[in-house]
């Protein structure tokens, strides 16, 4: 198999009325990786996935999928997808639905395997329209995987799932990735992107504002959190310490955000201010908040690799 990227966005733009849902997106998805598209609601995740699947065409720029156009890849049965919107198909059983979708593909997986992978074996003869939200979500997952595609695209795949079902879902996704499948999923759950993606692309206002492994993203913001007990000492000096960019006092405890934790800790030691010292890397949530703003404009586009 050639090693061309699984999917490529080149300077892609897409506007819906006044909304720039994709505003110059550049992105290459490598074969075999699990990539998370992370962003707030309205950041442009669903638009990006729609363009990737050929459900929409870009206003400018180019989208290619598995070396051809999205349409060609879809017609060749190389892509499976789980769309976000959509209610259950009425008056059809789980087995009938998954079986039908599987047979539209040239080399599908056995229907029993697809059902087992999605944890639907016991529900195979139930009507899809009568399942719970979480069960229906698993049906859509089985539909995405039934054709044994090279690339699977999942828009908010775990949105209606409880904790146990989420675990089972990601276990199934790991199985798919182990067989060499490429997966692209969108989410607004940081922990999910952090735990299950090889790579995270943060979208905001239709732009890629960060792109890297979870560790790389943590490093992008640089810095760390340093916390100490004040033991009644005045806190004024803290903001003047080397590296410190932000000071937060909660009761008797000071939490310092710093660009240079080593220098900050040395300066605290020099003033004999170390009591109950805690140094932590920034939480991914802080990284995410630093990269995106509620008004949808990018604050830190330089973080883009």
């Amino acid at each position: 198999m050639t090693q061309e990227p699984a999917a490529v966005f080149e300077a892609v733009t897409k506007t819906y009325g006044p909304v720039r849902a994709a505003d110059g997106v550049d992105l290459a998805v490598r074969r075999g990786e699990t990539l998370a598209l992370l962003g707030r609601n309205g950041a442009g995740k669903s638009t990006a996935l729609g363009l990737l699947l050929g459900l929409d065409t870009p206003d400018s720029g180019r989208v290619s999928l598995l070396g051809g156009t999205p349409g060609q890849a879809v017609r060749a049965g190389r892509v499976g997808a789980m769309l976000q919107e959509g209610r259950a198909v009425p008056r059809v059983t789980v087995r009938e639905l998954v079986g039908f979708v599987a047979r539209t593909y040239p080399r599908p997986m056995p229907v029993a395997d697809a059902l087992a992978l999605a944890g639907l074996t016991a529900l195979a003869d139930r009507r899809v329209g009568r399942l719970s939200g979480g069960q229906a979500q698993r049906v859509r997952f089985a539909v995405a995987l039934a054709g044994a595609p090279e690339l699977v695209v999942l828009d908010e795949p775990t949105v209606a799932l409880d904790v146990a079902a989420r675990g089972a879902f990601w276990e199934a996704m790991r199985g798919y990735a182990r067989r060499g499948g490429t997966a692209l999923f969108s989410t607004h759950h940081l922990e999910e992107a952090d735990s299950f993606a090889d790579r995270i692309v943060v979208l905001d206002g239709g732009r890629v504002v960060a792109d890297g492994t979870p560790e790389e993203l943590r490093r992008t913001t640089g810095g760390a959190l340093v916390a100490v007990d004040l033991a009644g000492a005045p806190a004024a000096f803290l903001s003047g310490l080397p590296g410190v960019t932000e000071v937060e006092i909660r009761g008797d405890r000071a939490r310092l955000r710093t660009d240079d934790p080593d220098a900050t800790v040395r300066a605290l030691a020099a003033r004999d201010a170390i009591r109950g010292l805690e140094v932590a890397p920034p939480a991914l949530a802080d990284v995410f908040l630093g990269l995106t703003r509620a008004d949808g404009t990018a604050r830190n586009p330089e973080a883009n690799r």
Partner: protein
Amino acid sequence: MNTALSTTVAYARLEALRTLRDQGFVISTVGIPVLMYLLFTNLGGQHDPAARTAAMVGMAAYGALGAAVSLGGAVAEDRSTGWLRQLRITPMSPRRVVAGRALTGAVVVLPSIGAVLLAGGLLNGVRMPPLQWAATAVALWLGSLPFTLLGLGNGYRLAPQTTGAVNVACTLGLAVVGGLWFPVALFPDWLAAVSAWTPTRRFAELGTAFAEGHTPTAAAVPLLAAWAAVFGTYAAVSYRRSARTV
């Protein structure tokens, strides 16, 4: 069988199953036409065999018309649930999806036709040679194609709520004006003149001709074909418009 073809057939089978599991569909396209046929022919002591045969064909045509047009509701529903969008990301091409849907129409009209003809033969004593029965059924089956196309056009063009109302209006309007419920002989002249141009009138005429063992009038088949072309264009234009938004 070629894979693309067998996929289309599998799709039509799935959709036909879904339609036939819809109780509302079965009641309105099988139950009501049979009931109306039996009521209209047995109330008022009408015992003229020719009238019973004509009413049988009319009600079978009415049932088939309703079944074919109801395809629009099913398509509108599939657009709103996202099922058509999901189909767009399977290897099945959009043209095959439409072809499969039209094929579904050809299957789901059969219960209406079969049930009313059975009621005629078993309960109302309509008698004709086996070949004539078969020819009548086939004529009704093939003649329902324009209405399937009308249903598809509605389904691809209209919102689900609107589709329901438009389908009922199309079915009832075409049935009454086309003379499927009451003989055209009872119509005032102006309505009879309008009726002559409707597809439903020619549809019923096709069935009645075979049931009575004579050939349909020269106008019947060309007029029905012209309506098929009109509704086919309507379906194609509606489909193209919706392809951008589904």
